[in-house]
């Protein structure tokens, strides 16, 4: 079973996107979201990102991390550095909303980690019109 970790600057985006992803899936996937600072303002709590990631690693076979702008990705990369680049965690280089939805669906179909990441990254070239 894989898990998806959604990171956003905005606590509302994190919460809302998690809800959107949960609605799309049928199978067994854990979806977690971290957004905003400790005080609930815009930003990211990099320590919480580290702790959540460790928790998901312990309770699933792999974690796909997706973030929005700048500091969420820095927080994720920092966590990977501190954990010694675990093989079962990947940051997907994808737009957050579409990437998270696609990753959730793909993971719920039982695809392996690398395949889920690939599918999420493919949404970069998705045409909407």
């Amino acid at each position, binding site marked *: 079973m894989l898990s998806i970790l959604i990171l956003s600057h905005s606590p509302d985006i994190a919460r809302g996107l998690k809800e959107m992803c949960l609605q799309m899936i049928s199978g067994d996937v854990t979806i977690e979201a971290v957004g905003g600072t400790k005080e609930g303002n815009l*930003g*990211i*709590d*990099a320590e*919480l990102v580290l702790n959540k990631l460790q928790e998901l690693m312990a309770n699933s076979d792999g974690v796909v991390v997706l973030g929005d702008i700048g500091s969420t990705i820095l*927080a994720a990369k920092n966590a990977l550095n501190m954990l010694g680049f675990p093989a079962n965690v990947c940051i997907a280089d994808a737009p957050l909303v579409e990437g998270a939805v696609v990753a959730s669906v793909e993971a719920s179909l039982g695809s392996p980690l690398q395949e889920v990441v690939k599918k999420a990254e493919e949404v970069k070239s998705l045409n909407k019109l």
Partner: protein
Amino acid sequence: MMYDANYFRRFIEIFAKYLEENKEYLTRLDAAIGDGDHGINMDRGAKAALDRLSSTNPKTPGEIMRTVGMALLSSVGGAAGPLYGTIFMRMSLAFGNRDKIDDKNLATALEQALLGIKGLGKAEVGDKTMVDVWEPVVNFLKENIENGRTLPEICEEVVALAEERMKATIPLQARKGRASYLGERSIGHQDPGATSSYYFFRSLCEAIGGR
């Protein structure tokens, strides 16, 4: 010269004092090219660091730096959290469990910190980030310390160089971080992270008492 736990505590206290005094200034710089939170973020982070230092009372330089790094990670909230977090964590790793740090250890630790932030944020000199201050200052420190000089001897030059490189970010266009979304509009403003980095090096020097 040897730097003990008291030196590093003094360094953190001075850094925190500069961040508090310049909270509005840093926030104004960040408001011009970012989201206006760098001063608030760094001041909050420094206060959290001081709190954790007094509640956990770490004994070695390495433990002190680690405590500060974790506090910054949990409380800064913006890009500066992971970046400064990395700086302090890398320095902590480089110090290991030594009770006293010499000039060479210090230079190595700062070099590790620089490699850490470059690896994390992928910024190079000229991208209008804190790396614009860090890289030249660390290179200067390393070169001089390898040639047998000590931090107290070169402090004035270190602070002057940090200030010069901080100001040199003004005409640059940002290519990393939130300010890069502004394109040419980022030209003409001093980078907030380069400015807090100037306070970092200034504090490191002032903690010696040689300045």
